[in-house]
Structure formats: C-alpha cells, structure tokens
C-alpha cells in the first residue's frame, strides 16, 4: 500500500514537472503574432526583427509603463489614480519644442491680460511651473517636480494654445512600475502602454518620434 502510494506520488510529480516544463517552454518560445504587433519590440522570435525600425527591438527584455502624450486628453486622473502620492506622473518640459512665449497657455489662466507671476494668473495649483525672464521677449518655463502633482492643467493649456512642449510623463525614478499600472486602468484614452525599459520616454519633440510612429503603425495593423 505505501509503495503504491509512493509510486503514484512519483508519477504525479513527474506529471506536474512535465507540465511546468511545457508551460515554461511554451512561454519562452512562444510565437509572436507579427501582424498584431502593437509595441514593435521584444521580439526574440519575430521574423521582422531584422527589418524592424526600432533600434531597441532586440535588446528590450523588460517593460515599464509610460503614457503617450499624443493620446492624452489631460483628464486629471494621473494626479489621483497613481499608487504613489503625489503621483509618479509629472509634467515634463520638452524645451526643444518650447516657444518661450511671454503669454504662455500653460502658465496663465485663460483670459489673463496682465502677464505677471501673481497667483491669480497662474494655472498651476501648486506653483510648480516656474517662469523666468530670459531676454526680450522670451521666458523660460521649468517644472519643479517636487511640487508637481501631475494634474495636467498646464499641459492642457500648452497643447491647446502653444506648441505642446509641456507633456505628462511617467517619471521612472518615482514609479513603482506596478505589474498593472493603476493609472492605466483609469485612463480614459488608453494612453498608458508598456514601453521598452531601455527607451522609457514617449516625449514628443525630442527626436524619438520614430519609435512612436512605429507604435502607431502597429495599432493600425491591429
């Protein structure tokens, strides 16, 4: 009796071992559906990897969360949905795109006529966006990340009236990289995606559009 039980146990153990082996094998060597590629990376078995336009295609093995400013509608949920408080999403300034306007749509409330840094004119609720005079007629705007809560008010203003140089981004030194981002779940425009860990930015206007274009192409295909 004990021998038979022992034998059955061993048999089951072997079965489970085989199942685990099969599972990990299937996971490691699974075929990617190249046509529905939405990220365009992490492609160890993709036949298109050689011709893939993504420079990081072959190296990326891990992903982090990032939000695509092109899809963002500045609903303000980044400020409230993140597991971190304050949120790990912050306004990020792509200086290369900025027009250095005196009248900044991201800085001033709509309808402001006197352009001073007085509180009643500022769009930012926490005074995180700083304005500094450079030379006639240019002003530099910088984001104080310690104060920024990621509400996206300035981003909305900038993309509506300006060049769209202020953009929301996940700041990865603050991000927990949760298994499933809790903002992504709340994001109304599905702007949050997993991106390659070695190319964690989706900022526009810094010359990394190639990656995003490829991402978009994938979407169309899908």
């Amino acid at each position: 009796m004990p021998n038979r039980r022992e034998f059955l146990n061993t048999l089951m153990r072997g079965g489970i071992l085989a199942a685990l082996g099969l599972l990990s094998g299937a996971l490691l060597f699974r075929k990617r559906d190249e046509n529905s590629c939405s990220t365009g990376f992490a492609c160890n078995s993709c036949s298109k990897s050689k011709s893939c336009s993504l420079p990081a295609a072959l190296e990326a093995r891990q992903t982090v969360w990032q939000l695509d400013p092109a899809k963002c509608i500045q609903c303000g949920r980044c400020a409230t949905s993140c597991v971190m408080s304050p949120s790990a999403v912050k306004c990020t300034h792509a200086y290369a795109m900025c027009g250095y306007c005196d009248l900044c749509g991201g800085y001033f409330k709509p309808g402001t006529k006197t352009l001073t840094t007085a509180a009643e004119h500022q769009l930012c609720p926490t005074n995180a966006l700083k304005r500094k005079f450079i030379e006639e007629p240019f002003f530099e705007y910088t984001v104080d990340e310690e104060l920024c809560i990621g509400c996206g008010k300035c981003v909305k203003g900038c993309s509506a009236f300006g060049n769209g140089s202020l953009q929301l981004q996940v700041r990865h030194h603050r991000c927990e990289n949760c298994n499933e981002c809790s903002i992504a779940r709340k994001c109304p425009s599905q702007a949050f995606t997993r991106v390659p860990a070695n190319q964690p930015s989706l900022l526009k206007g810094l010359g990394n559009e190639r990656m995003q274009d490829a991402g978009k192409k994938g979407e169309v295909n899908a």
Partner: protein
Amino acid sequence: MRKTNLVPALLAFTTLFPKTVFAIQRFPKPEFESAYTQPQTQIPLPRGEFMAYLDVAVLLIALSVVTWLVLKKRSRLWVFAMSIFSLGYFGFYREGCVCSIGAIQNVSLALFDSTFVLPLSVILFFILPLLFTLFFGRTFCAAVCPFGAIQDLFAFKPQALGSRLNTVLGIIPYLYLGLAVLFAATGTDFIICRYDPFVGIFRFTASFGMFLFTGILLLSGIFIARPYCRFLCPYGVLLNWTSRFSRSHLTITPKECIQCRLCENSCPYDAIDIPVTTKSPESSPVMVKKMMMMVLIVPVLVIAFGYAGSRMQDTLAGVDPRVKLAKEVLSGMRDAGSGMRDAGYKMQDAGYKMQDAGYKMRDAGYKMRDAGYKMRDESFEIKAFKASGKTESQVYSEASAVLKKFYIGGWLFGGFIGLAIALMIGGRMLPVYRADYVTNKGRCFSCARCVDYCPVKS
C-alpha cells in the same frame, strides 16, 4: 518683429475657443541673442534590467536557504529570521512588486496575447517556487513570500477555525484564481494586483479602502492565522496541489511518532492531520456506491457551473474598459435626448401629413434632437473616444470580441470551479489510514512551529 508674432497669438488666446491639437509648432523656435542655453530635458531611467535578475537570484537563494532550514536544520527561529529578511527585501525594499502571486496573471496573459512581453525573470518568479514546492513542500510560503511573512508576524493568538469553516472558506482561493486568470487572459485587469492588501504597507501609500482591507486582514490575522494565505491566495491553490506530491516534506517528528499528542494543537493553520486508525462508519459497499455516484456527478457539476459562469458573461465583461466604453457609447447614443428624438419623430410624422408646412416642423424636431445630443454631459471616456477618431462600430466590435472571450472564459471558469468542488467532495470520500500525527502536505506552510513541540529529538 518677434513681438508681432504674439499679437495674433494673444487674440487667439483670449477670443477663440481652444481646440486641442497636439504638438504643433505654432510658435517658432526662439533665437536667443543672449548667452542663454536651453536646458536639457531630463529623462530618468527606470531600474536597471539586470536588477530583475538580482531579484531572481535572491529568490533562488532564499528558497534554498529556507528549504534547508526547514528540512535539515528544523529550526523555527531561523525560519522566522529568514521571513524577516524576505519581508525586508521582497516587501519593503522591492515594495511587493515582482511577486510570484501576481506572476500568475502575467503568465496567463502571455499565453493568450502574443504581443504581451513576459520577461524571463517573471517566468522564473512563477516557476521557481512551484518547483521547490514540488520537491520540498511549501517552503516558499514558510519564509520567502513577504505576504506570508507579514501575516505570520501578527499570528499572536491563533484559534482553531473548525473543520467546516476551514473547508468552506477553502473554496474562495479557487474562485479568486479562476477570476484572476479569466480577467488576465482576456486582457481586462490584473485583479490580484488591484486587490493586493499588503503593497500598501510596503509602499506606505494606498487608497483608504485598501488600507481598511489591510487593517481588517491583519487584525483578523491575530486570531485567524494567515487569513490571506489560507482563504484568498490564488497562488496557494497551485502550491497546495504541487505540495501534495512533494518528495520530501517537513515532518513533525524527526524519527518516529510516539503519539504524545503534544503537537495536536501546535499548528496555527489547522494543517496537522490526526491519526486515523478506525474504519469508516460507512460500510465500504456504500462508500463505493457513493464514489460511483460522485464520478457520475462530476460532469454534471462541471456543466452546471460552466453554464452559470457563461451566464455571468455580461457581468464579468462589464469590468473590461473596452466593454465599459461600448456600453457608455451605446447608452449615450440611446439616451442622447432619445426623448427629444422621439419628439422629433412625432413632429416628423405630423410633418409628413401636413406635407409642406410639415417640413419646417420636422426641421424643428431635428434641431431639438441635436440640442438633446449636446445637452448630455460627456464623460472623459466619451471625450477620449471622440478624440481618438475611432468609429462607434469599431468600439462595438471590439467590445463584442471581448464579450465573446468572456463567454468562453465564463464556461471554462465555471467548469473549473465545478471541478474543484467535485474534487474537494470526492477527495473526502477516499479511504484513509494513518497511524501518526502528520502534516497535511497540501495545507502546511512548512513554518516549522510544530517541530518545537515534538519531544522526539534526532
């Protein structure tokens, strides 16, 4: 010259209604005359990729050490010490993210969505504890899993729960596992992570509701030891079943049981099986008959639960954001002043009858309907949908696809629950004989508490 650029801009700013068009070089790049240089946009990098493999290494080492401590050293104190280390590393340092329990979802999603990236480290986090359990019992639960470790700390006054409650509550992990896999495989949600009660502690931040749940779990954990592990943990289901076939499991006594009964109440988790030397009061022909019945009932149960699961299709799929959006668009389009539209219809009908004069009335009806459309407040979801340029039918067909997945998933999920319950009942019909006090290989967390109670020393 440059200043003049600002005049039309100012006009636009103050008078026009803003229309969001993303990233357009509306204003030219400035040409600075002073020595000003533009600052660089700082892009912080995430944690290095190799660090993930450090985590795997720590996991492997912790598993090996704990296994050795449990099986060879048989020391509760050292196991406890290891659990503090794991709590520190996987809990407070890694903040609970990358965890074997959550990895279930990544693995499920990866099996169904070929574009989902599944790093090797996550596969290892999923497989390694199972492998160890398959050979040495649930040493992962003993002192590697930070969830177990933190609950173990609070098990001050464990009470025996009673076999009935233990059994019935034991169904919950199967439900949780089934739901977690269903939601993950359909790409809907990672509910294990969403309702993870302990990460809030590890990160010192969570929503109020989550903290409430954590508090309740930990406080109840004073009397019901490790409530999450026993009555919720979905990974525990897998560990339970692998552990049942483990090769060398922790034993209470190092040599031979002397039936002293000292260990009988030592286990806070009700995982010690008492000796059974008597025969079942039910005669064996009756038992055999019941077993036969059971075998016949299994498919019935599977189908019944599967049917129930498939009927839950709409409710379950309602969690999915794609389905939610489709519902919102659908109801929006329906309510969107449907009253107004009906009024429009009526006026239109009247209009047909009165021919020429009626055309004007019908137009008025349309105007009212359009006003109805505008009147409705738009949610962010609807706004985002409009901004995305997707058509309504695209949204509907996406949602239909998800719904279809949930129909099949509902059957499988229900069938799984039916099978689990059938097995649980059937398992309690098998003949039993054991002479000694032994650990229940499925439920035992290998915490090594009972070892201290055994007077027999090697």
